[in-house]
């Protein structure tokens, strides 16, 4: 049995299924992300694990213990809320102390554990400040210390970085990973931010409309998306509508492309191709030619929209300081066949 086991967890609000037979296993010490757009059911799942929502059906087991009917206060989980939910009338150390007091831990041990927790998140000098006297990143760390100090069996992070600005968010990603590994706590992160999920987790569970669509390590999930949703939600992707005939790809526009080896699929399909896998080549080596319709400079890279015989393609190129084709110019495109991912569509034969 896995450390945390969600077994066909379902939550209905009236007639809508927010979470639909969702199953997931998390091993001890693992960092797993629930990734999906807003409304996909990831927050409801977290609320059910935390004990704030009662599942309509399905079970949650943590460390062999069935959590059904266990009130939130007896689950012993550490939770970092999206708003941090710090107690505004308590100082940093009083906030961290609260959970220990609920466990009737004696003053001396409490002091030692608060000091250790604040040290872990590098906030020792701020112990007697009130939350409103702290910056966003510091508040976040207080929330983390408060959740970790009770030595939770499971740490739940609910969009913990979404209230921070972009630069701080990147810093806190590294910080969060360090703290999680130092504390060695099993962690479940809920986020809509694919970069965050990829940077932090050992495994990603992609959710869509209450279902689990893919569960894999970040690299694996990015390279081998299990369906169209996963391929477009994790990074950018070109989806080419096509049919697979006799080991070759025929696009709806009638263009034949080489199929990656080992694609056993036949019939209607989508070929997914990452924009960074397409390169500009000499006319002789080109698979396709097209016209640049839009060009956007993004600092470290360029983004092109190119009109081709198989439809509009997105291409990204690392900014290496060279001059790039302008809008209206003709470019010649090539890629390696193994970078195409053949995804089944609903009406696959």
């Amino acid at each position, binding site marked *: 049995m896995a450390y945390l086991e969600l077994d066909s967890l379902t939550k209905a609000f009236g007639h809508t299924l927010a979470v639909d037979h969702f199953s997931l296993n998390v091993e001890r010490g693992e960092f797993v992300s629930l990734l999906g757009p807003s409304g996909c059911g990831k927050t409801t799942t977290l609320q059910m694990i935390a004990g704030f929502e009662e599942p309509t059906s399905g079970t949650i087991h943590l460390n062999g213990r069935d959590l059904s009917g266990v009130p939130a*206060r007896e689950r012993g989980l550490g*939770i970092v*809320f999206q708003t941090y939910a710090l107690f505004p009338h308590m100082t940093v150390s009083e906030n961290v102390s609260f959970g220990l007091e609920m*466990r009737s831990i004696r003053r001396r041990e409490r002091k030692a554990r608060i000091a250790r927790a604040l040290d872990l998140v590098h906030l020792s000098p701020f112990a007697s400040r009130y939350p409103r006297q702290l910056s966003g990143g510091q508040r976040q760390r207080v929330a983390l210390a408060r959740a970790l100090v009770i030595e939770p069996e499971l740490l739940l992070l609910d969009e913990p970085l979404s209230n921070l600005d972009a630069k701080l968010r990147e810093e806190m990603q590294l910080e969060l990973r360090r703290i999680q590994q130092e504390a060695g706590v099993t962690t479940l992160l809920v986020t809509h931010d694919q970069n965050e999920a990829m940077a932090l987790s050992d495994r990603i569970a992609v959710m869509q409309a209450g279902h689990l669509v893919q569960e894999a390590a970040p690299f694996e999930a990015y390279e081998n998306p299990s369906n169209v949703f996963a391929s477009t939600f994790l990074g950018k992707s070109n989806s080419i509508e096509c049919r697979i005939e006799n080991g070759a790809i025929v696009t709806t526009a009638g263009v034949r492309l080489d199929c990656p080896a080992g694609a056993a699929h036949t019939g209607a399909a989508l070929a997914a191709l990452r924009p960074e896998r397409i390169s500009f080549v000499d006319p002789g080596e080109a698979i396709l030619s097209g016209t640049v319709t839009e060009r956007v400079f993004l600092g470290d890279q360029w983004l092109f929209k190119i009109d081709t015989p198989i439809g509009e393609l997105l291409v990204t190129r690392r900014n290496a300081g060279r001059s790039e084709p302008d809008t209206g110019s003709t470019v010649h495109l090539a890629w390696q066949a193994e970078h195409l991912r053949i995804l089944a569509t609903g009406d696959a034969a």
Partner: protein
Amino acid sequence: MNPFLLSAPALVLFAIMMVVPLVMTFILSFNSFGFYTGIEMTLGLHNYIDVLTDSYFYEIFGRTFAIALATTIICAIIGTPQAYFLTRMRPFWRSVMVLVTLGPLLISVVVRTLGWAILLGNNGVINNALMGLGLTNSPFRMMYTSGGIVVALVHVMVPFMVLAVWAALQRQDPATQSAAESLGAKPWTVFRRVVLPQAMPGVLSGSLIVFSLSASAFATPSLIGGRRVKVVATTVYDEFLNTLNWPLGAAIAVILLVAVLVIMISWNRIVERRFAGVFQ
């Protein structure tokens, strides 16, 4: 446009209709009164000396502030949890309870007090029920008592308390309650250690409103207390419309005004000092 020009019409009204009358009342309180001569335009402190040396008036002021204090405390005890429950209700029931709580504010105090007179009388609803259930043989006297006034005043004032506490609670992040719960706090602990401290500014400002309104209430003490249980406001009324000793009535009114203002200002000071550091 110049803000004072925009406010000018209202300013003129206030200058003529409020500032001048209040100043005139203040002056009136130094005049003297003769039974045959009426108001005499002398200036002296005799009215204040009369009030401040007469145990009769001490009793009235003491009773007034005791009633106001009791009303305030009861309103805080009832109103604070009620405001908290309000924040936790489903939207439909919340609307219903907001209407039940605040709707009576829109009905005349005279009408509401009439209701309490019917409920509290010796032959009233409550006594008949108590005797019908055999809980008591002779009726509890509630009409014409300070206790009866407090009950009716609590009814009039508790909406202000609920409103003030509710406003404070709406400023708090509801996730703080979930956070406390996830850290192992039982419902009562969540209320005492997380909700109540955050509601405290609302409780204190609500207390201030309730106290000052109760200390100067007229209709309720007058109808429930009758002639026997006098408070400051009813005493002022009697001096003006029955004994016709306006200067003495004005002096009592000025003392009431000053007392209420002093209590309000010092209360605000205390509250500001206590909570300055904690909330935005």
